[in-house]
């Protein structure tokens, strides 16, 4: 990979706000590589984010960028995409952003299947507000609001997206750089609502409170709590890679869990408009 991705950075806005050892920079690099390799027109790319550490991503990206309110990025993105379908709209959310405060928008976006790419930077914690419990924090893990360990069951965002009807669902980790970039290309190219759950490291909060404070140890933690690459489009499904089975083994499986061609909302809406216009014309 060349340094071509640099043209997508707002150099004046650097450095970014993320801590040393944070996985977000890795995700952003993979995203920019994917955008570059797909040859997307820079002016027609819109990156929309919510609130949190991930929400700060658009500041440094030289696209049209919108930093919205906590949890609502998908709703804003829905408006942008429907108003101008020519735009390529990529939505960046945190795990709490997407599945706690924005959970309603997330499941309905999955159901609606508008042509959006949703990238969830999933660090299992609320970072920007200082390390509080997220809906994705594994049971037993500590946070500043569960100082003795969480008793809450976490969301598995892949299963949530599958259940809510998303057409493309994948999971990877921020250290799996090559896989991440190639999956992002698939997610961005997918016509419909594509979800990527990207497990990323937060040594500052998740790490410090759960004995993985060193960035290097956090990477190991991600490796050791996830199972190998799975691809639903490659025929045979290994039972161990099934998200349900893997979940029971306390491992988060990675890979592609759904990649189904289906008509996206924009196409269906276009057809509805054509029929309505025709109905109007024949009535007059």
């Amino acid at each position: 990979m060349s340094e071509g991705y640099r043209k997508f950075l707002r150099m004046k806005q650097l450095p970014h706000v993320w801590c040393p050892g944070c996985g977000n920079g890795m995700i952003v690099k993979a995203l920019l590589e994917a955008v570059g390799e797909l040859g997307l027109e820079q002016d027609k790319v819109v990156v929309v984010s919510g609130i949190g550490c991930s929400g700060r991503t658009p500041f440094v990206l030289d696209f049209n960028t919108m930093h919205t309110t906590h949890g609502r990025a998908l709703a804003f993105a829905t408006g942008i995409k429907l108003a101008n379908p020519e735009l390529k709209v990529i939505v960046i959310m945190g795990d709490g952003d997407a599945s706690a405060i924005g959970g309603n928008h997330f499941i309905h976006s999955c159901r609606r299947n508008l042509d959006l790419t949703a990238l969830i930077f999933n660090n299992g914690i609320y970072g920007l507000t200082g390390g509080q419990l997220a809906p994705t924090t594994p049971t037993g893990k500590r946070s500043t609001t569960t100082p003795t360990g969480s008793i809450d069951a976490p969301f598995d965002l892949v299963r949530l997206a599958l259940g809510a009807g998303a057409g493309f669902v994948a999971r990877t980790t921020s250290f799996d750089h090559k896989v991440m970039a190639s999956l992002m290309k698939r997610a961005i190219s997918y016509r419909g609502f594509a979800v990527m759950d990207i497990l990323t490291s937060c040594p500052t909060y998740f790490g410090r409170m759960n004995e993985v404070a060193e960035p290097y140890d956090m990477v190991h933690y991600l490796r050791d709590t996830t199972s190998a690459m799975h691809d639903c489009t490659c025929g045979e499904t290994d039972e161990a890679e099934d998200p349900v089975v893997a979940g029971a083994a306390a491992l988060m499986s990675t890979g592609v869990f759904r990649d189904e061609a289906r008509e996206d909302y924009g196409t269906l809406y276009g057809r509805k408009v054509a029929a309505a216009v025709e109905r109007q014309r024949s009535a007059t």
Partner: protein
Amino acid sequence: MKSQRLVQGNEACAHAAMYAGCNFYAGYPITPSSEVMEILSYELPARGRVFIQMEDEIASISAIIGAAWGGAKTLTATSGPGFSLMQEGIGYAAITETPCVIVNCQRWGPSTGQPTKGAQGDVMQAIWGTHGDHPVIVLTASNVRDTFEMTVRAFNLAEKHRVPVILLIDEVVAHMRENIDWPEPGDLEVIERARPAEAKGFRPFAGDAFLPFGAGARFHVTGLAHGPEGFAVSDEAAAKELRRMVGKIMDRKVELAMADRYLLEDAEVGIVAYGITARPAQAAVDLLRAEGVRAGLLNLKTLWPFPDHLVAEVSERVGLIVSPELNMGQLVREIERAAAGRCAVRAVGRVDGHLLTPAQIATEAMDALRAGADRGMAERSAEGVRA
């Protein structure tokens, strides 16, 4: 002769939105606003425009703001509980200077309250509902014809000043049918948002010009305090931007003031009313005049920025201002402030879900006049000084 139509307030609102060029509606059903949505669900697709039903009111306001930055003229309509949920998005629209229109068909509250009963309890929320100082324009309408015109004006002001505009109607206006002269294209002015002379180098928060995403420039939009380029600022720079944003609306108070006057020229009692309550107020003027009291009506159509000067003008000429509202006294606080003790101010509130009647308003006016006469002029002006 103009073609006439018998339509409901909500119907007038939906058609006026299309007249004004609205090409994007996102909403969530709620009584008593749902007809606006139902009509647009059919009419917008037939015109090649966008209609979408969202998962809640937060999503609805967020979607219309997104759509505005996608280049659309946008509307959502809701009622009390939904309006409460939209406050978050209204704040975002305010700080990002996003043109959009929010119609709130007021119903009895708080909470679920009485969904099918009209009220005027959301006035202060419309002005101050979202956190922080912020720019917003609030309009209202007292009949079906006004609802059409004020909807078009709401779009015009949103476009011209890059600001969220809230149109407050109520359950009664929303559902009543009246015959109106149906506006033909060209009858009412329709203002389009100003585009920057050049896309390259567009600074998204440096003035009233607006460029959507994908139109030749790349820029950043955020709900954080930001400078003209859209990137975060703090301290004095943040204060300066906030003052500019709020100032661009508040400094245009006179230009934005819209009101109707009825028999005010020689009035000794001024009724200052708005929305549906302007109608019993007008009838009350006739009742009072029949009793020999020279009453007049100032019917405010712009509620924010509050047209102090119009109320001040009335307060200079009358001994008494009567302020009828379907709430426990909201706009009356602004009226008292504007009257600044120059005349007595009597609030008349009703919160049982029914309209104030002309007789109630007239009786309160007579009562206040008698009370004022009893107390005597000296005492009355002393009381006025407290403001």
